[in-house]
């Protein structure tokens, strides 16, 4: 395992005119570690993840495997992001979306890995040839997960990956996250599921009103208490 953290965030700030946003967030995610980001609605989870993924401007520093935003291409090549907005064009099928991903993510062979990953999420050949608009919300979610997990990268940044999944798929997600950790990947996930967070995460970050606090490895009660006192 590399001594350098897969993700290093230092005094990251991104605020909106309303005053909301993230203020001076600092934390690290090491290889082989899952860090969960929990917080109430509007606390700044998505804002923080968008900054980490390079989808929004910010103050401070984000380093992925030592690469900062001046080396954007190297950063993006080392992380897989599942942003909050994961709508796909309604008239494209999953297989075409995967072809786009293979081409623009510069990941040769991704399409083949995607097919086997999709099977893991219960998407067969028929579903992959179906236009996105004909898929249920849950199926679209699985499509997004299959795509992002088709990449093999040191860091995964996932915004509410459990959203719209049924209980069986949530269980499968948990196994997948743990599997990636055991393979040595680093994972940062924002979630509203405190139970999931406390089960899989090695460390929990609580975010309230843009302030990030490292709770370490704690139980559900402590997380809820931290969120309650901060909000």
């Amino acid at each position, binding site marked *: 395992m590399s001594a350098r953290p897969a993700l290093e965030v230092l005094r990251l700030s991104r605020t909106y005119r309303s005053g909301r946003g993230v203020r001076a967030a600092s934390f690290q995610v090491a290889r082989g570690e899952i860090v969960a980001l929990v917080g109430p609605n509007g606390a700044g989870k998505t804002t923080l993840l968008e900054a980490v993924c390079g989808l929004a401007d910010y103050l401070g520093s984000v380093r992925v495997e030592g690469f900062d935003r001046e080396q954007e291409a190297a950063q993006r090549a080392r992380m897989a992001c599942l942003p909050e907005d994961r709508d796909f064009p309604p008239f*494209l099928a999953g297989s075409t979306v995967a072809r786009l991903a293979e081409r623009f993510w510069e990941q040769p062979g991704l399409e083949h890995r995607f097919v086997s990953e999709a099977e893991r999420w219960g998407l067969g050949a028929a579903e992959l040839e179906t236009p996105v608009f004909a898929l249920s919300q849950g199926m679209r979610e699985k499509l997004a997960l299959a795509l992002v997990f088709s990449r093999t990268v040191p860091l995964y940044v996932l915004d509410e990956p459990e959203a719209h999944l049924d209980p069986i798929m949530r269980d499968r997600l948990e196994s997948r996250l743990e599997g990636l950790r055991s393979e040595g990947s680093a994972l940062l996930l924002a979630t509203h599921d405190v139970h999931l967070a406390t089960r899989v995460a090695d460390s929990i970050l609580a975010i309230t009103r843009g302030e990030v606090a490292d709770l370490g490895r704690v139980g559900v009660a402590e997380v809820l208490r931290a969120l309650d006192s901060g909000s």
Partner: protein
Amino acid sequence: MRATTIGTFLRRRTRWFGVMAAWHGLLFREELRHSPYRSFTLLSLAGAVFLYFPFAAWGVREVLALAGEEGFDPADVSVLPLAYAVFLVWVLGAGLKGRTLWWVIRSSPVPRAVLGLDRALGVFLVALIVAGPYVWGAVQGADFQPAALLSLIALPLWLSARLRGAGGLWYPFMLLLSAAMGWSMAFLVAKYLDQGLVFEDYNYEMARQLLRPVFARLHLPEFLLVALRAPAAVHVLVGLGALWGLASTLGERSDDTNVFGFVGTWLARWRDAPAALAMSSLLRHLDVGLSQAVMAGAFALAARTYGLAALPPGLVVWWAVAALWWPVWKERPALPAALAANAPDPRRVAVELVSGRHRALAATLVPFLLLPGAGAPLAVWVVLIWLLQYGSGWFAQLDPAWLPGLLVFALGSAVLWFGGLP
């Protein structure tokens, strides 16, 4: 035929132009107050004044030329180019400031419905410009053209697509409202040119013509015969039918995707993913694009039919296809957020997506190569579009976003115009 005095005519027009001037003044004032694009607004204001003035001066001269007689006959042919000119500049003016209108609607204290009406009127006048040649042809006793029917069906389609912002339960009502406006004005113009001013009773005329074949001649062949002999009635019936079909087929945008499911399945098999993405965007905007395409094609056909311009067939096709694609080409191409977030080289993405657009555009033109008279110039243009993809790097960096589309449209028009000349 009734005649009205020049004084009455001018008084009515003066009042009308006064109202319109006040209306635009209000809009510009609101834009200057609220729009973040103030310099653009000022520029568009200057442009609108520049455009209005010579046409207004020309209009006054036309009217004064007619004033040499005791009475003024509004059916005089001179009215038509005058009306066209006024409509055209109004639409241009509305188009120029349409860029910022949504900011006004969003931030102005003036009720949205009031401000939105201006846009609706602008759109409606575009539709009227398209319908004009047919109405004129019908009034002059020209044979009824199938293209006229196409055009008049397209009007409410396009209007309703543009006014669709109402959404939800209001959508069907907006459809009917826009249709009613379109048909009423088409009638108005026809009656105006044919029989003089009929503002007082044109509704009665409409109802009579519409209901006569339905109630007095229930026998179907006779009904059809009467309908065919009365183009106005055909237009109304077909228009209403088209509206009903549109409303029930499209409904909310989320439902209209079902209509095109088979296309989505076909796209899934297309190995050229960037072109498939462009085609998917085309489908997403098909309701607006298709109605614009029909209108553009119908207008070009009308121009040919009534001798307003000798347009080569390939150019007619190109205008229709370009209008179909315009809702896509006016925006910068982009990957879905979930894909864009993981793409290491956004610049390469932009270039390849523009390249995909070129290939998809060329693909949509290929079926028209079989069109009699259009084949050779159109084939040249398809090859040129295909070659243009190799300049996608240059296209991708052009600003504003709609400029590449405009250049492609202009280049295609030039190629097909000169290529189609005898």
